[in-house]
């Protein structure tokens, strides 16, 4: 595996780092869409995501990495394991962060007939694809706006249902595929379909740091990393460890964080003012507030939390109004001022 750049060594990019931490604390917030110019370090930040995530408990022998604690066996592997009557063994595994390469074939994404078995034993078996690998983890698509249409359709469906249904080549398989979608891209190169946009919980705009000292720091660290990736990672291991513990602590606190009715009302007002469709925006707002509160060690989410997460959670959900050309960020700010007061 290529060695990723350590998360704690990333300079600047505060919004992006915040979004990643919010999602790491509560994956239910939904995915992250990072938009920005080239060379701003979008993919560096996303690939460093794995640093933050505490490992998972999985069932040994389950190709979909099911959670041993979950009651109802959902996948075929777990069912057949259960049928043997023995208690399944468990193991810890790092959270999967799966890269979806642009050239990937549909077979590779969805899964296909296991060629090895078909050839050698003449057996029809399913070989899981990237969606199965990403179950309970993250699926990362760099240059998401260049993704081929048929793959986009597929992802939209699976991301919504949390289940991958394969009906092809005489195979009939369904397996859990609950993953957090993370995309990055340069909006100049192509727009994203609103349906796909909606599957991302948060969106951030990434820019290159304008501050000369920050730029120098980026270049120094990146250069040091390229010269000796492992050594550089070791240098930052302590900071990364601290960050991970912080996330773990926040996760434990998450269920205790209160989101009051008055805050929910504010969320609803905000969404109404911006005319976002459906309840997904409100849900995302609420979860993101809770996650941010937990991250800061607070027991209750406040309007201040809402103010911080609202641009990220709403920016990409606004309908484009042909008569109003203000950027969506400004529109969110305006609505925030309206609802929360200056």
């Amino acid at each position, binding site marked *: *595996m*290529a060695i990723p750049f350590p998360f704690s060594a990333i300079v600047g990019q505060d919004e992006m780092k915040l979004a990643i931490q919010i999602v790491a604390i509560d994956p239910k917030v939904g995915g992250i869409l990072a938009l920005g*110019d*080239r*060379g*701003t*370090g979008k*993919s560096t930040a996303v690939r460093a995501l794995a640093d933050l995530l505490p490992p998972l408990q999985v069932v040994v022998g389950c190709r979909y990495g099911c959670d041993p604690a979950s009651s109802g066996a959902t996948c075929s592997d777990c069912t057949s394991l259960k049928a043997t009557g023995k208690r399944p063994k468990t193991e810890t595994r790092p959270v999967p962060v799966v*890269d979806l*390469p*642009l*050239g*990937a*074939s*549909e*077979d*590779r994404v969805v899964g296909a*007939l296991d*060629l*090895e078995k*078909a*050839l*050698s*034993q*003449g*057996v*029809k078996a399913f*070989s899981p*694809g990237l969606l199965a690998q990403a179950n309970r983890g993250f699926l990362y698509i*760099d*240059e998401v706006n*260049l993704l081929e249409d*048929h793959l986009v359709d597929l992802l939209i469906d699976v991301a919504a249902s949390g289940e991958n249904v394969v009906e*092809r*080549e005489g195979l009939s398989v369904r397996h859990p595929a609950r993953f957090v979608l993370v995309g990055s891209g*340069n909006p*100049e*190169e*192509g727009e994203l379909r609103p349906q796909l946009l909606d599957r991302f919980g948060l969106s951030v705009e990434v*820019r*290159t740091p*304008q501050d*000369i000292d920050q*730029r*120098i720091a*980026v*270049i*120094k660290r*990146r*250069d040091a990393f*390229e*010269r000796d990736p492992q050594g550089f990672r070791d240098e930052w291991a302590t900071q990364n460890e601290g960050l991970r513990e912080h996330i773990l602590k926040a996760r434990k606190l998450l269920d205790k964080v209160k989101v009051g009715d008055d805050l929910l009302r504010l969320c609803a007002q905000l969404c109404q003012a911006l005319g976002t469709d459906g309840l997904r925006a409100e849900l995302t707002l609420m979860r993101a507030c809770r996650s941010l509160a937990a991250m800061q060690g607070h027991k209750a989410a406040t309007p201040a939390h809402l103010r911080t997460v609202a641009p990220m959670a709403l920016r990409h959900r606004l309908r*484009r109004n*042909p*008569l109003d*050309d203000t950027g969506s960020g400004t529109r969110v700010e305006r609505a925030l001022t309206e609802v929360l007061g200056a």
Partner: protein
Amino acid sequence: MNLAWDDALWALAALHIDPVGLRGIWLRSPHGPVRDEWLTLLQHLRPGVRRLPNNIDSERLLGGLDLSATLNTGRPVTQAGLLAQSDQSLLLAPMAERMANEAAAILAQVLDSGRVTPHGGGDTQDARLGLIALDEALEDEPAMAETLQERLGIWLDLRHLGRQAQASDEVLGLIGVLCSPDEEADEERQNIIRRLRTLRLNDEQIQAITQMSQAMGIASLRGPLACVRLACVLAALRESDEVQDQDLGRAARLCLTPRATQMPAPPEQEAPPEQAQEPLEPQPETPEPPQDEPAPPDNEQPSDTEQPPDSPDSPEEDTPPQNMGELLLEAALASLPPDVLAQLAQSSKTQIRGGGQSRSGDVRQSRSRGSPLPPRPGLPRQGARLHVLATLGHAAPRQKLRTPLASSQGAANRLAIRAEDFHIHRFAERTQTCLIFAIDASGSAALHRLAEAKGAVELLLAQSYARRDQVCVVGFRGTQAEVLLPPTKSLVRAKRSLAGLLGGGGTPLPHAMKLALELALQQRRLGVTPSLVMLCDGRANVSLQGSGGRAQAFQESLSLANAWRSQGLQSIWIDTSARPEPQAEQLAQAMGAHYVPLPQANSQRMAQVVQAAPRHSEPDRAKLSN
């Protein structure tokens, strides 16, 4: 001595030493003796460097199932793709400007991650490589995909290099040693690599590079990073123990100067990013801004940077960082490519909504022609062609599953192919583009600028002719807008219709926009990608009803502009008023247009357009610079 060829050879040697660290080179040059010589030297340095055929499909690029081996052995055999095969080496991509977007995106990803995942799945493989992208695009043609440009460390432009270009003995000797047939060459290379590991830039040098890249308006940090790396490689090549000014200068010329989006101002005048596309105001003491020089004036550059740059926190004039920055700047500008302005113009062109493909039409999927995309499952009907290899590849591993049935039919040694195996060819096709010119010939415009506007249109016409675009001209004045020239490819007719355009009367801008929109939508239905070039001062004063009333006309124009934008159509707005007109800019924004004021007092901008079309004749230049 012209530094360009010397730099080119240093770049070549550096790529040979450190292909992976530098990620490769974007080499812009037509096919010709200069490039041939460079490539011959490359062949000597790296015999058997792999070539990337332009029509390569992603399967070959990424690797996938080896059909014959799979059939022979009865188990799936994967074949490494070209990328994995080029691990730790250089890969040559000729005609990179024609590369399919898909392939460019894949290459960009691999350059970033150094890993490649085979097409059908399987383990990822190492693919740490440097790409030599040969770009033959002419000035007015779309260059290589920007995603890919961005990743390549070195940018080299040999388009204006004559055959008599010379290089220093130092670099020639070095390449001679590295080319020598015996083990000496390899030993030398290993020595240099060993030295490279120990070389570092000091803080001051890194600061100088960062500052300069910012002053040049380079937003991406990949440029300065490549510059840092290249400076070390160059120092290692010279067998130096430390990175010196000449290495920094050379590296800046190869990595930073070509990426510049603005002329570097003295350090204290750091331009905010919004101004990145704007030409700088000429310095009062320099009568001509250096941009306007057709050739790089080596000894004039310093005069631009001689003013003592002082930053707020250090009043002393000779603090080392500034000195370093100045030296570096001077070195970087020493071989300023003559078309730096064409590049600037180009980089601003790509801001047009719709992205980098705008200039050659949208890409759409086709079943019959274009550059190949990976095959997809599907039935060969409605003009789709069967992709035999992919179909066989799909059927082959499944034979054992199907044999019971096949043998019962007495065809045991035939391949059993089912409908689900069928794969079809897919291609990406570029559609045609139609440029719609809407020209304001009203009184307000005619008096001032009609002649200039016509000149600008002629330039744009010449460019679009070179791109085989269709053009269409709409003129508007008085109370009417009319199609002076329906979509055509005839440049002569377009010019004639322009010449016949007389000025005077009101500005029925809403009419013109409505007509242009109708034309554009009609063209789009025909499968042509339309884009609009609007030449107008934005001062609409005739409404759709044909009555006067500025406010009404402006409101109508605004809502039509929004309609234009919501259709996702592309446009450029050239403001023909004497000084940039807020109304025009507002309308351009509403349209999502790229707004270009046609300035009167300072002819820089126009000169840029002129330089971007170098084959254009002199008289027009005189006319336009006014």
